[in-house]
């Protein structure tokens, strides 16, 4: 017989997972239909993108698999459509569905990578500016102000065209994704820096930080172990919303022709290429990548909006 007194069970320390499952955020997630729906859609889109090599009927990067007599086939449900080109093909005989799956992969990769890079820069700059104040604060924040005063498209076009001119030709194709990530991150770190700075200025005056100073904790540890965890809540919200924004910026740049090249197309590249054939009647080349882009960004933004509300007790 297991004879454990009730209070012993109650006193069992809670694991981090248990705390999360008991938290208001998880409760609010389970009670928000839009958040659940957005999460499911986003999960499916990401899963499909990750499984692109398995799911897609054709490898769009493999030029040998393209056959020109399959060019500009309409979707299967229309007259002239044929399997396996469910959503039709483009002018080179590339399967639209495969292009979308691979393109989503690139878009998501660039979105996540630019969010991570800008988070690292922004959180670090915000912590330093908020913690030390004075000239450190002034220098970092004025740099941010200047960057924000230049339109992001200009910054990104500048960075990526300069980089393309500077990179040796054999690195150009491989480097372009990294250049795009850096161009987007260069712009969006400022937002994280501002959020973290404001929160850091509040936290560093709190008594738990002073108590930690009293035992001689060095500044680096004060910032990373005490202040940083208490500034992250608004950062999560900003990061989610910026993920959607980063995908859009990348699509815009690719649409303008300074983003991903047509031989490794992102969603934006697909839309740009398809746009040229819109008036010749091949509407499917541009429509389906656009729908995918919409679904992706709307799902991310809905999740971000829900997260912002769930983490802000004043809005409940």
């Amino acid at each position, binding site marked *: 017989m297991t004879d454990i007194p009730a209070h012993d069970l109650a006193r069992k*320390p809670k694991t981090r997972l248990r705390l999360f499952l008991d938290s208001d955020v998880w409760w609010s997630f389970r009670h928000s239909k839009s958040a659940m729906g957005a999460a499911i859609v986003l999960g499916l889109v990401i899963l499909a993108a990750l499984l692109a090599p398995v799911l897609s009927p054709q490898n769009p990067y493999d030029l040998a698999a393209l056959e020109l007599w399959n060019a500009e086939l309409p979707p299967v449900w229309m007259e002239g459509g044929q399997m396996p080109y469910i959503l039709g093909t483009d002018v080179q005989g590339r399967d639209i569905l495969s292009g979308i799956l691979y393109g989503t992969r690139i878009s998501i990769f660039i979105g996540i990578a630019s969010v991570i890079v800008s988070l690292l820069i922004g959180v670090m700059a915000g912590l330093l500016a908020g913690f030390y104040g004075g000239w450190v604060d002034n220098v970092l924040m004025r740099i941010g102000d200047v960057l924000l005063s230049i339109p992001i498209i200009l910054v990104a076009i500048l960075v990526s065209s300069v980089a393309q001119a500077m990179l040796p030709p054999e690195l150009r194709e491989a480097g372009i994704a990294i250049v795009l990530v850096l161009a987007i991150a260069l712009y969006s770190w400022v937002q994280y820096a501002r959020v973290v700075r404001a929160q850091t200025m509040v936290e560093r005056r709190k008594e*738990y930080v*002073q108590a930690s100073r009293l035992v001689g904790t060095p500044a680096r540890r004060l910032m990373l172990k005490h202040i940083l*965890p208490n500034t992250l809540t608004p950062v999560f919200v900003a990061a989610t919303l910026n993920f959607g924004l980063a995908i859009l910026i990348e699509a815009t740049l690719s649409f303008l022709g300074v983003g991903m090249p047509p031989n490794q197309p992102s969603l934006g590249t697909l839309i740009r290429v398809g746009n040229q054939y819109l008036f010749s009647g091949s509407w499917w080349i541009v429509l389906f990548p656009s729908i995918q882009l919409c679904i992706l960004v709307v799902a991310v933004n809905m999740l971000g909006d829900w997260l912002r509300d769930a983490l802000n007790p004043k809005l409940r």
Partner: protein
Amino acid sequence: MTAPDAILSVDHVSKEFDVSAPWLNRVIERKPRLFVKAVNDVSFSIPRGSCFSIVGESGCGKSTVARLVTGLYSTSGGEIRFGPGTAGRPVRVQMIFQDPQSSLNPRWRAGDIIAEPIREMKLRKTEDETRDRVEDLLRIVGLAADDSAKFPHEFSGGQRQRISIARALASEPELLVCDEPTSALDVSVQAQILNLMRRLQKELGLTYLFISHDLSVVRHMSDTIAVMYLGRIVEMAPAEDLFTAPQHPYSQLLLGTIPDIHAPNRDRDLQAGEPPSPLNPPPGCTFHPRCPLADTRCSREAPALREHGRATVSCHAVEEGRTAAPERSHA
């Protein structure tokens, strides 16, 4: 005035804060630089094993004194000296803070909060020893050993203050600076925390520098009490003397504000007014605009601290014997 067995002596210490507008505003709007003298020429010493209290209205500089003593602020003038520490190391000072909501990091478990001084100062060699020490500390302050896995939000205000005390004790301090440790708690919990602090003082031989605005709390704890007004000490006396025979008019005013359970509706001759802005203190004795005994000398000349019996008072009226006898004693 440094006693030979003093663990702490504060010698003519001042602290100014720069509250000027930012540089650009000063240049454009021609605003002057502004300084607040939060602490002005304060001296006292605390004998080992005793409890020294500082009382005063909010804004009088008592918390600044606490932060000066712990080294969180640097002094603008004067000197803070510590006596010889026991066990061949300098005196360790720790602090208990006012607000149990913000003095514990909400993302750390209680055990990690208490272990932080031990880990930072490397007081124990192994993680096992640290854990044992944390469990001891939790028991010492009246919590359970397995509370160490909980987060601060799972505790009540009084329990959090106990964690705060346990954290302060973790570094084996000799001098504890308590900045209004009970003012955020309700009365029944206040008594528990104060009794815990008295017990700890006896058992561990602690010395307290106790900051409060609540005279009844201070009376329970102190050996010596200093009354502060606008950054200066106006009266310093043994605790019972201050309560039975307050000499400075401001001390009398403070004591007059204590509610009396036997005469709840007694007439109070409350002097009107608030403390003046420390940005622009009145000339002479800073208390003279509110003082019933003030005369022209008080508004011109700042009084010095002088000994009167067992107390030290800075007041022209007391010096000249113009004192109206304290109307009530609060024995």
